[in-house]
């Protein structure tokens, strides 16, 4: 956890503390997409992701001095604040936790909602197949297959326990190094490494299940004929 803080971030934060709107806008535009995506992957819900993003930056406006450059990067600090807000929300409203297995617009694949969601279910081919459990090849097949993959992986990530999900989101989906993730999660690098290893093993397992089920289903249909 020896991240060096960008001096520019420190200067921007000083300006924010003095009420400089432009400095805040610069920090927000630079940092908010990653925070928003993190919240979205973690909560699986765009409304929650928006609220959490807003709360994170609201905290920065109200008390910019909370960030201590000696303890890590501004990005890591913001992820930490986002994580705390997510936990608070989950404590307040348990039904938002994806682990509960309830419908979850983002991890289920969702439908097009104006925020770039792909309108394909993550649970397999929906009527565009050839009756043998395999979809017919068509000009849109690559896109369809990609969307299906995205849906399945998202769903698998969404069902990981929270501690594992956050390392996958940070290290795999936000491409953070172990050090950066450890700083954001306020835990040792070794913990990040072991959690990521375990999380990936769980994901492999989860993604293996539907594949095996589809294969079994296809075999079943073949023998029925």
């Amino acid at each position, binding site marked *: 956890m020896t991240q060096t803080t960008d001096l520019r971030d420190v200067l921007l934060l000083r300006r924010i503390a*003095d*009420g400089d*709107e432009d400095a*805040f*806008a610069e920090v*927000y*535009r630079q940092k*908010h*997409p990653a925070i*928003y*995506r993190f919240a*979205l*992957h973690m909560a699986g819900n765009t409304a929650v*992701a*928006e609220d959490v*993003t*807003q709360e994170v*930056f*609201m905290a920065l*406006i*109200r008390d910019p001095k909370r960030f201590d450059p000696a303890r890590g990067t501004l990005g890591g600090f913001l992820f930490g604040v986002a994580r705390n807000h997510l936990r608070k929300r989950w404590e307040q409203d348990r039904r938002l936790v994806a682990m509960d297995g309830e419908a979850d617009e983002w991890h289920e694949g969702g439908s097009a909602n104006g*925020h*770039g969601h*792909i309108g394909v279910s993550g649970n397999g081919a929906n009527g565009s197949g050839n009756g043998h459990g395999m979809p017919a090849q068509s000009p849109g097949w690559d896109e369809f297959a*990609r969307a299906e*993959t*995205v849906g*399945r*992986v*998202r769903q698998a*990530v969404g069902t990981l326990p929270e501690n594992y999900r956050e390392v*996958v989101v940070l290290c*795999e*989906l936000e*491409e953070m*190094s*172990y050090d950066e993730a450890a700083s954001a999660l306020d835990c040792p690098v070794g913990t990040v*490494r072991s959690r*990521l*290893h375990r999380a*990936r*093993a769980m*994901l*492999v397992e989860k*993604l*293996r299940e539907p594949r095996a089920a589809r294969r079994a289903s296809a075999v079943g249909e073949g023998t029925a004929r």
Partner: protein
Amino acid sequence: MDCARFESIVHEIERPGTEGFALRESAFEHAESCDCCARLLMETESLDAGLRAVMAAASAQEAPPRVETELLAEMRRQKAALVQRRVRRQVAALSTAAVALLAAGLSLHYWKGSGGGSNRPAPPAENPVQAHGAAATGTPNVIDVDDSAYASSFRALPYADDPSALEDGAVVRVEMPRAALASFGLPVAAMESDGTVRADLIVSADGTPEAIRLVPRNGASSE
């Protein structure tokens, strides 16, 4: 490399800077000779591809513009509050300074009036102290004591704490501003507030005035 070792590093094979990345060549070699590990390798590669697809699908995701609008509005509110707080703080600091200055001025005034500040350079006395050979207090202008001017009894000053001074103290005649009488507890408002008055002070051995009586200019005491 054995299967257990392969399994421990397979998830880091694509992550530069890790042990798995350093051992990837030997891991690939092992996978070529082991079906189980080859399948695991294929599955992790498939997982990596899936995660990359999720990352790509989400790369354009960001909060809607209204979030930024609301945050900037909050920023403006905070800035206004910050300015207000600063103004209030400055007003409070100035008020405190004004009160402190006023208090210091009043203290100095009463201190001077009560004969303190003996180290203050006294204006050159036209006529030195005469009575009982006592030293002058140094506050008011010291003038000659004229026995015929004694017209009334002395009045003890509010802070007088040496009754023996009334018996043994030195008497000095002074001329001082009328306003200074207030510091001796005399009803200055009833008199003319400008000009000077002549008074006799009984001064204790340490030079502190203990009692006062006014001496009219025509020689009769007003008290």
